[in-house]
């Protein structure tokens, strides 16, 4: 992929002039930002600001109309994500969670986590059907790895339970565990605090920090819960109506006039 301009040193994801519109409405409009390696980056904005759309573009669920999304892949090569199909993204080292938890109810927690290791399996169809020794070994080692991650997140004791019927907090953790299976470079979390209570949200902040430190990866956080974002992020980017609003440290964002207006409305609005 020599035609893609290499990213500057220390940058893992660079979005330039990203735009997408649905039926004439610009959901994301000329958005640009960069994420550094090992950074916890928050993307915030009021409802309908285009946060989720922006990252559906990054993960290629939507194909953007304009703009480039460059990413430093696992092999230390800069790739243009727009040139890849949605199922190829994880292989490059970019993985995501879902706002409304997308797990398979009928499978056990462990099996759900193992779905995250799908691309690591070398066994073919035949090997899987006759369960060759190689297939068995591979399955066992990945199972062990999955158990380690579940242990890390503190839910190893529930590994064999089916996902259906588990409380929301556990489901969120299972999704998190699933993303960790592929040894990612960048994890995108779509509203991880949604549906969690205060205690769980506090715990989540710790988990996110530990993941960054233990797994050496960057985290892109799309979130409504301001406390979590202010608490855990190194850098925050605020957007509104699909457009860039402000970028900076949590403190800077807190004091930024434009952000305050976007969230609270202008003085006249409040009257």
């Amino acid at each position, binding site marked *: 992929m020599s035609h893609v301009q290499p990213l500057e040193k220390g940058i893992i994801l660079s979005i330039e002039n990203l735009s997408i519109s649905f039926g004439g409405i610009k959901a994301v409009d000329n958005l640009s930002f960069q994420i550094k390696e090992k950074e916890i980056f928050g993307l915030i904005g009021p409802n309908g600001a285009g946060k989720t759309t922006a990252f559906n573009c990054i*993960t290629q*669920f939507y194909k953007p109309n304009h703009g480039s999304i460059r990413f430093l892949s696992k092999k230390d090569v800069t790739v243009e994500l727009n040139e890849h*199909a*949605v*199922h*190829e*993204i*994880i*292989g490059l080292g970019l*993985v*995501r969670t*879902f706002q409304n938890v*997308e*797990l*398979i*109810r*009928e*499978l056990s927690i462990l*099996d759900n986590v*193992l*779905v*995250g*290791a*799908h*691309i690591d*399996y070398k*066994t073919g*169809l035949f090997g*899987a*059907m*006759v*369960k060759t020794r190689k*297939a068995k070994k591979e*399955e066992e080692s990945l199972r062990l790895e999955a158990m380690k991650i579940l242990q890390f997140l503190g839910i190893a004791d529930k590994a064999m339970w089916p996902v259906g019927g588990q409380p929301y907090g556990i489901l969120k953790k299972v999704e998190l565990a*699933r993303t960790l299976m*592929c040894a990612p470079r960048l994890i995108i979390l779509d509203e991880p605090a949604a549906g969690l209570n205060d205690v769980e949200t506090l715990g989540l902040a710790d988990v996110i920090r530990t993941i960054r430190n233990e797994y050496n990866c960057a985290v892109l956080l799309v979130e409504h819960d301001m406390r979590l974002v202010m608490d855990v992020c190194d850098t925050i980017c605020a957007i509104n109506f699909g457009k860039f609003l402000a970028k900076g440290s949590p403190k800077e964002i807190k004091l930024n006039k434009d952000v305050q207006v976007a969230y609270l409305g202008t003085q006249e609005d409040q009257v």
Partner: protein
Amino acid sequence: MKKLLAQIKAYPYTKYILLGLVLATIPSLVYFDVLKSSYVTLVGVVMIYTIVSLGLNLLLGWSGLISLGTAGFMGLAAYISAYMTMNLKMPFEVTLIVSILIPVAISVLVGLISLRIEGLYLAIATLAVSEIFRKTFAEFEFITNGFSGKSVRYPTFFGFFKLDTTMTYLLLVVFMVVIMILIHNLINSHVGRALNAMRGSEAAAQAMGINLLKYRLLAFALATALTSTAGILYAHFIKYVEPSKWNLGLSLNILAVIIIGGVRSIIGTFVGSLVVFAVPDLVLKQIPYFGKIPNFAYIINGILIIVVILYYPAGLIRVFNDGKDAVVKLFKKSRGKTV
């Protein structure tokens, strides 16, 4: 001894092998006049439909893709194998491979369509495919012998080893048990998880690197391979293929097998096949008055589909398991009291 028993119980394939062994005794029971000779045909047919239904279960149960073309593909394989062994005098081994490959190739095309259309339309598309087959079977007289049907012989292996009724029956047992074990392995592997993920959440599946096109085609190909195997075995076990057999009614009966027996359950599929294809002859016809109603079984299966989906979505296999659990609980409780 206890340890050995525990080991056998823990061995994942025990239930399939046990089932196979039990079924394998039926010809000798017939020989000793314990059972009527019609049982061999009846149970053989049940096993054949278990194989088809396992294919449909793989497609509908595990992968979440519906197909109403089952009977069409089964008929196609039956006709190809009949034509190849009877008209072209090809060896059974070659026939087996070709009669699986051709339907699989066609089903892959259907799979390609499935990726473009939404889930609900798939049933209609596959219904159209089966209609294409049905009309074609009646027209391609030089292969199918038209409406009068086509006679077939028991399989011959290596050119000289001719099977008789019992041997063919045992061949069915072997095929069914091996297929059950292969599917058991498959669904517990990463491939099985990928199929499950595709059904559970297409978005999550894609995000986890599962190529939907590849796995949809795989699901269609595997299901059709099993359907074709069953079609070939049917032709060579019943020794007769007729065009009117491969209609929507048969596809619906096969659907009934997995819904009634148990979606995503291997043993449940066998139970369902037993209910749909053997219970009518064995039980329903013996019931006074109701047994005389034509189509009684067909009506019951239709009602069962609706009732099971509404009130017992896991199927009959769940009833057995719940029953077993209840007995175990009862046993444990009573033992607890005595201690």
